[in-house]
C-alpha cells in the first residue's frame, strides 16, 4: 500500500544498532503504545562530546523502524552539537524519502534525539506523568485537565473532541465527568443525553426564533435603519430576509453569520444555520 523506497525497506528488514547502550550517557524515550509509535534511543558519548555509540528500540511501523535505524547510523561518530542540528527532513532524506502520511515517524526520531541530548546535558524536558483515564486512547488525567483549562472546555463531548478521550468504547465517560466537575466546578454545562432530550417541534422552534429576533436582533438592525424578517424554518435551516438599509449593505453576509446566527445559536439551538433568502 505504501510506496517505500529501497532504503526504507532495507532498514526495516535489517535494522542497524538495535538494542540499548549499557550505562547510556543520554536516553530519549518518546511516543507511547497509545499512539502506535514509540522510540527509545540510548547514546554513549565520550569525553570529547562525540557520540561513539547509539542504539534504538522501536515500537511502530516500517517507517518508524527505518527512521530509528538510519538515525543511529547518522549520529554515530558525530559531535553532540552537530547531532543536535539534525532535522526530521534529514532523517527522511537519508531514507530516500517517506510517504507524507509517515513523516511523523521521522519527527519522532528527531524528538528522541532531542530528548537524549537534553538528558545527557542534565536538562529535563518538562513532561509530567499522569494516570491513564481513557484506556482506548491512553489519555491521562493530566492531559484532560490541561485541555479543559487551555480550551475552556465545559462538557464531556468537548473533552472527546479535543483529546479523543471517551471516543472509543465510552466506558470512561463517568471519570471524565468527575475530572470536569473538579476542574471547573459550577461552570459545567449540564447536557441532557440526546435520547431523553425533547425535540423542539417546528412550531416551538419558529416561535422561539421569532422571539429572539424581536428581542435580540431587530433593535440593533433598526438603529441602523434596517430590519429582518423570518421567511422559513426547515430542520436546522433558518431562512431570513434583510430589509431596509441592511438589504443593500455590503456587510449583509457578516450580519447574517456573525450577528443573527450567533444570537439564534446562543438563545435557541446551537445547531441552527441561518441563510439569506435569495
Amino acid at each position, binding site marked *: *500500500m505504501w510506496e517505500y523506497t529501497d532504503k526504507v525497506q532495507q532498514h*526495516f*528488514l535489517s*535494522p542497524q544498532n*538495535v538494542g540499548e547502550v549499557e550505562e547510556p550517557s543520554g536516553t530519549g*524515550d518518546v511516543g507511547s*503504545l*497509545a*499512539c*502506535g*509509535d*514509540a*522510540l*527509545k534511543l540510548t547514546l554513549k558519548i565520550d569525553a570529547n562530546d562525540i557520540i561513539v555509540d547509539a542504539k534504538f*528500540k*522501536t*515500537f*511502530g*511501523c*516500517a*517507517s*518508524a*523502524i527505518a527512521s530509528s535505524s538510519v538515525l543511529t547510523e547518522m549520529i554515530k561518530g558525530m559531535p553532540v552539537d552537530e547531532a543536535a542540528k539534525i532535522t526530521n527532513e534529514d532523517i527522511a532524506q537519508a531514507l530516500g524519502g517517506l510517504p507524507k*502520511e*509517515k513523516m511523523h515517524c521521522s519527527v519522532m526520531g528527531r524528538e528522541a534525539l532531542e530528548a537524549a541530548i537534553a538528558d545527557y546535558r542534565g536538562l529535563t524536558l518538562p513532561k509530567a506523568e499522569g494516570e491513564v483515564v481513557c*484506556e*482506548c*486512547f*491512553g489519555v491521562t488525567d493530566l492531559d484532560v485537565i490541561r485541555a479543559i483549562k487551555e480550551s475552556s472546555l465545559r462538557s464531556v463531548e468537548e473533552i472527546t473532541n479535543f483529546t*479523543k478521550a471517551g*471516543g*472509543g*468504547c*465510552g*466506558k470512561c465517560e463517568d471519570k471524565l465527568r468527575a475530572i470536569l466537575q473538579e476542574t471547573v466546578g459550577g461552570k459545567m454545562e449540564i447536557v441532557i443525553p*440526546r*435520547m431523553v432530550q425533547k425535540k423542539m417541534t417546528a412550531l416551538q422552534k419558529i416561535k422561539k426564533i421569532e422571539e429572539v429576533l424581536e428581542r435580540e436582533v431587530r433593535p440593533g438592525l433598526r438603529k441602523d435603519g434596517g430590519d429582518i424578517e423570518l421567511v422559513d424554518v426547515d*430542520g*436546522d*435551516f433558518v431562512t431570513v430576509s434583510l430589509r431596509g438599509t441592511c438589504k443593500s449593505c455590503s456587510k449583509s453576509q457578516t450580519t447574517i453569520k456573525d450577528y443573527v446566527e450567533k444570537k439564534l445559536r446562543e438563545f435557541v439551538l446551537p*445547531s441552527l*444555520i441561518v441563510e439569506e433568502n435569495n
Partner: protein
Amino acid sequence: MAAYPHVIYMDNNATTRVAPEVVEAMMPYLTEAYGNPSSMHTFGGLVGQALKKARCQVAALLGADEEEITFTSCGTESDSTAILSAIRTYPERRHVITTRVEHPAVKNLCENLETVTGHKYRVTKLKVDAEGMLDMDEYEAALTEDTAVVSVMWANNETGVIFPIAEMARMAKQRGILFHTDAVQAVGKIAIDLGKMDIDFLSISGHKLHAPKGVGVLYIKRGTLFVPFMAGGHQEHGRRGGTENVASIVGLGRACELAQEKMAEENSRVKKLRDRLEESLLSSIPKSMLNGHKTNRLPNTANISFEYVEGEAILLHMNQHGICASSGSACTSGSLEPSHVLRAMGVPFTAAHGSIRFSLSVYNTEEEIDMVIGSMPTIIENLRKLSPFWKG
C-alpha cells in the same frame, strides 16, 4: 505481462480470488455474447436470459424470489440505496439506528446524514461489548416512532462476529420500522434463508464471494416501498438504471451456485483450518489474544492481537514470506487511528495496534496453515526484540 507472485492468501475478507468456474461462466459475455439485454433482437435477448438465470441463482442462495434481487455495482452502492430509500420512504421520521462497528459504507453514510443535512437526522450507534456483541436491551430502547430505518451488519468484517439479525429484524418489523443488513461478509459463509425472515433490505458484494469486483446485489423484500438511488433506464424493473454489468452478473450467479455447493466445506474443513491456525498461534506466541467472540463468529475469520508490536511491521514481514493478511493498526488504516471496530470493543491500545486479521477461504490448504504457523512466532519474536515495551 508481469507474473504475479504466488502467495499464501489469507485476506479473503478484503477480497477473494475469482473462482475458475466463474471465469469460465463469464467468458462468453466478454467475447461473442455482447448484446444489450434490453434490446429487441435475439442477440440481446439471449444475454437477457443469462441475466435471468443469474438472478435465479442469487435468489436460490438467499432463499428469496428472483423479483426481490436487484443488481448493483457493489456492496457500498447497495448499502446507500437501501438506507437512502428507507429515509425517503418515511421523510417525517428523522432517526436512524446502526452500530459502532459497521463498515465505512454504512458508517460514513449515517454520519453524513447527521452533519450534512444540518442535523435534521439523529443517528443512534449501538455499542458492542468486549467480545464485539450487541446489547439487545439497548437496541430495544432505541427503537422509536421516529425511527426511519435500522441498518446492522450480519457479520463483522474485522472480527467475524455474527449479529442476531433475525431477532433484530423481527423487533423492527413489529414496530413498522424498515430493516437493512449489510450481509457482505456473511453471504456464502453461513446459511441465509430470507423467505422466513423480516429483513427488508440486504446487501451483497460479489468480490467477497469469488465473483469479480464491480458487482453487488440489493435484496428488496417483495412489497417494500422503494425509492431508487440511481435513476435512469428501466433496467432492474426501474429500480436501478444503467446497462447491466452482464459478464460480472453472470459470474456472480455462478459464484452463488458454487457458494451453496461449498457452504458445508466452508463450515467444516475451512473452519478446522482456521481453528488450527488460531489455536496454534495463541498457544505458541506469548501475549497474544483473540479479538471477538470465540464461537459466535464466521468460520473463516481469526483476528489476533500480538502485544507490543505493530501491525504494519508484522504484515510487511509476513509479506516477505508471501503471506497476505490485514491489520487493524493505525498505520495501515490510512488515518492516524486504529480500527474503529477494535476501539468500540475496548481492545486496549497495547493490543489494537498489533492486531492481524486472517480470513481464509475454500482455496486454503493444510500446508499453507503449516507454513504460517511456522513463520509467525519468529516474525513476532524478532519484532519484539526491537520493541522498547517487550521485556524479554
